[in-house]
């Protein structure tokens, strides 16, 4: 069977001790027994040792909670995501590429020394290094899942993959459309020529503008508007198309920041940002922690704090990268929040990039409104507003590679248009999609049915998890249940989280994404992608999760 592709959404889990959440709990666990000691037993010795120990722990806690991205990056991402590497033999790590990265030169010789091995760049060398042959846990998981994939009849004990952000719920609709229309959509008539039935490759194969055909921009504009229930309309001349949202984000990073600068990104965030924003650009990400107590909503206070911390470290912040709906949690940002972020950006004179990748897959309550950054078109300083989008999620065609940059800034658009030469959309695919997305009836029907199925599946899956005591964050969009399994982890730490992740994979035969990959500061959260499940698979996978949960309970 074809190996399950890995979407852009996954990162390797870290194997290091994690963040502030652990620190707080540790401190709490120390203080309470102390009362007994100080009041009665132990006396002077303990009375002096224990405060010193406390002081030490306090320092440790403060240091961890300072949110030092470089440190935490080093600790928590020795292996940055290259999500699509499904090569079984790849034990190769990707380290964080900071702006000031030092080349590890153990196996490299300077070009001045003859008869040495040919040099590879800093960017490449850290990736190519193979650390002692051991395979990283994340890739082990993906490999296992693809080697042993679940199949109801053929392999009922195989691994069920909930770690890939794919939507299979509505593939049948797209397929149906293609069966009817594909041929003439790709090579028929060379475009507008209604009566020319002769297969013509001319319009498809010749050089076209790198940033996409205008017809496709028009079609994508109308599709996006449809997904946003026409709350906003898009001007195709403010749009640049590229080969996926991955290069769209990278192009924006290249255009808005220099190497060594930084973006603020609320956590938990899509693991692929580490690659898209940082790898080749040398730009840093400063995580802005969000907490479960607020359902992971972004607070401007946190944004401000992160900005100031960056400033203290001498890092120049160039923008905020938000996702709406958020991923992995699946919230919609409220209108108030969007405006507050804009105020903040205006105040600091920085950019706002809004990643709206899942907007068409939002399936929440009708009274929750979606506010696109594009709605703020009347704002006076709209040059700081940029939107990133793609067709991978909302219309389930990740393989076709179509990403969108939408901006009100002419210089950014101009730069982006030139930069898409390195990542253009393929000709035949453009023609196919022009036809598909221009089919208004099909698009309307698709978006409607897709939302319904996503909601139904979400309700069934989240409901099933709730029955076993696993709560999910409230979600309005996307393919994920963001589930709190902190009660089931052996220790309230990243280590504990990874142990549970491993158990789910090896014992439960369910592949999921641990929250540490998404830089969540609270251990124990897991991302389950439910959009790959058929109705019949839901009870199967819930049962397996229950099995693992029970065994964890009985152990603790």
């Amino acid at each position, binding site marked *: 069977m074809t190996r399950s592709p890995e979407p852009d959404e996954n990162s390797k889990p870290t194997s290091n001790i994690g963040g502030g959440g652990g620190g707080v709990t540790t401190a709490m666990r120390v203080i309470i027994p102390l009362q007994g000691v100080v009041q009665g037993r132990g006396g002077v010795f303990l009375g002096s040792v224990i405060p010193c120990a406390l002081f030490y722990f306090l320092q440790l806690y403060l240091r961890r909670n300072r949110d030092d991205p470089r440190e935490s990056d080093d600790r928590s991402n020795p292996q940055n995501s290259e999500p*699509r590497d499904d090569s079984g033999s790849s034990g190769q790590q990707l380290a964080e590429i900071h702006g000031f990265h030092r080349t590890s030169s153990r196996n490299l010789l300077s070009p001045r020394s003859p008869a040495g091995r040919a*040099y*590879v760049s800093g960017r490449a060398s850290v990736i190519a290094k193979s650390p002692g042959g051991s395979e990283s846990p994340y890739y082990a998981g993906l490999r296992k899942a693809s080697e042993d994939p679940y199949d109801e009849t053929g392999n009922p004990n195989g691994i069920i993959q909930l770690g890939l952000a794919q939507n299979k719920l509505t593939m049948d609709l797209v397929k149906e459309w293609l069966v009817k229309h594909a041929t003439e959509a790709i090579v028929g008539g060379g475009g507008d020529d209604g009566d020319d039935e002769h297969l013509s490759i001319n319009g498809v194969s010749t050089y076209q503008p790198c940033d996409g055909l205008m017809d496709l921009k028009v079609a994508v504009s109308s599709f996006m508007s449809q997904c946003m229930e026409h709350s906003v309309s898009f001007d195709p001349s403010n749009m640049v198309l590229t080969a996926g949202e991955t290069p769209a984000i990278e192009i924006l990073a290249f255009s808005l920041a220099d190497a060594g600068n930084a973006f603020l990104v609320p956590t938990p965030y899509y693991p692929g940002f580490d690659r898209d924003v940082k790898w080749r650009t040398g730009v840093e990400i400063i995580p802005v922690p969000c907490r479960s107590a607020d359902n992971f909503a972004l607070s401007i206070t946190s944004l401000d704090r992160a900005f100031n911390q960056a400033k203290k470290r001498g890092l120049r912040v160039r923008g905020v990268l938000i996702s709406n709906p958020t991923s992995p949690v699946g919230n919609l940002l409220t209108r108030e929040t969007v405006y507050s972020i804009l105020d903040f950006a205006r105040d600091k004179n920085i950019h706002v990039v809004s990643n709206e990748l899942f907007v068409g897959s939002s399936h929440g309550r009708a009274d929750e409104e979606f506010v696109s950054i594009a709605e703020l078109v009347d704002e006076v300083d709209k*040059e700081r507003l940029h939107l990133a989008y793609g067709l991978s999620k909302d219309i389930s065609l990740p393989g076709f590679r179509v990403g969108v940059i939408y901006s009100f800034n002419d210089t*950014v658009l101009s730069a982006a248009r030139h930069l898409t030469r390195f990542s253009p959309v393929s000709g035949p695919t453009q023609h196919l999609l022009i036809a598909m997305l221009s089919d208004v009836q099909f698009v309307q029907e698709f978006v409607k049915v897709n939302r319904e199925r996503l909601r139904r599946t979400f309700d069934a899956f989240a409901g099933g998890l709730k029955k076993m005591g696993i709560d999910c964050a409230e979600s309005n969009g996307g393919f994920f249940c963001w589930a709190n399994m902190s009660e089931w982890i052996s220790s309230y730490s990243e280590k504990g989280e990874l142990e549970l992740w491993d158990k789910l994979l090896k014992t439960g035969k369910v592949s999921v994404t641990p929250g540490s990959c998404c830089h969540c500061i609270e251990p124990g959260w897991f991302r389950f992608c439910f959009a790959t499940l058929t109705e019949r698979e839901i009870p199967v996978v819930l049962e397996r999760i229950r099995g693992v949960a029970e065994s964890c309970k009985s152990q603790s």
Partner: protein
Amino acid sequence: MAIELEQQPKPSAAAVALSRIAVSETHGEDSPYFAGWKAYDENPYDELTNPTGVIQMGLAENQVSFDLLEDFLEHHSEAATWGKGATAGFRDNALFQDYHGLKSFRGAMASFMEQIRGGRARFDPDRIVLTAGATAANELLTFILANPGDALLIPTPYYPGFDRDLRWRTGVQIVPIHCHSSNNFQITESALHAAYDDAVSRNLNVRGVLVTNPSNPLGATVQRAALEQILDFAVEKNIHLVSDEIYSGSTFSSAEFVSIAEILESRGSRHVDRERVHIVYSLSKDLGLPGFRVGTIYSYNDAVVTTARRMSSFTLISSQTQHLLACMLSDKEFTAKYIKTNRERLRKRYDVIIAGLRRAGIECLRGNAGLFCWMNLGPLLKELTKEGELALWNLIVRDVRLNISPGSSCHCSEPGWFRVCFANMSEATLDVALDRLHQFVDEYRRTGSS
């Protein structure tokens, strides 16, 4: 290729700052090479509707063999639709975004590349990394082989796009290896060393040599002896060798093209020699499918293959396109016929243009490949300088209405050379262009001006 030429817009007052990359000029599109495009875009020639328009002779596109492709697609519509009734194949295909690329497609590419080289070299499909075009492949390799501030050595004259593709985001520099008409612009050992020394004297770390073979803009293959020398040089200096072979299938006769892959195989090279060699290929030229955006990196270096593969996430080829081309390129009968026919037609075109230019008293470099010829208008220049060349070029674009590419855009060390494309138009249009040029040259010679 149609490039949007815009004036750099002025940033608004109190503007939020952009990166250096966003505002830099390194996209290089202010050079005459691109100004000629503009002239064409504003007044494009059309046989019927605009017979006095500018004829595009600056676009290296291959349109001579479209009919063969169309024919294939007409008889193999399943290539475009994932099989009869678009069944299971579609679902996997639409979801497929694995940066390893479709195995069937990689296999088909490897065997196509072998066919082009007459079976004189073998390609392992697992060393093929797919990118959305050769532009992306070249940039990717540069990111991988060099750090910002490092240098690549490139023989002149070279494709003007390299200034942008290899330097813009990577921060890498280009140091030219100067070649001269005295030996037909062949790369010499002394030129290689001179370039290297020049880089060193400027405190630049040289990371590699990038050779285009067959050469753009020369329209000629690099000789075996020169390739051997370049490889020896790369080994001596412990640097990389990138061989951009995107025109390999456009050599007029298969025997005349020697790939670096053949050199490696004939040497039975040590691993340490092989792992510095990387080949770039694309279907834009040989197969005339630039709109499909298909490029590849073939590397003999495992670390480079792994890294390139991961980095190709930024520039994946649509799975639909991979599928379509896998079907096409697996059809060995079709590809053999295509390669042979394409070569013949290109040679014929080349003969037409050479003859036409000769009648006008214009000589060209002896070429044997590619979609263009390298024309010498040196004798016509008022002054044998870059300015003189550009003055003549301006005249030709404006008055003769032919968009040709001046050698200075290609960093040619001698003024007066121009690249003229011949494969992106009908034979009739080519005749019109040749007539115009003939008339212009006659007039120019007679009156000393036009």
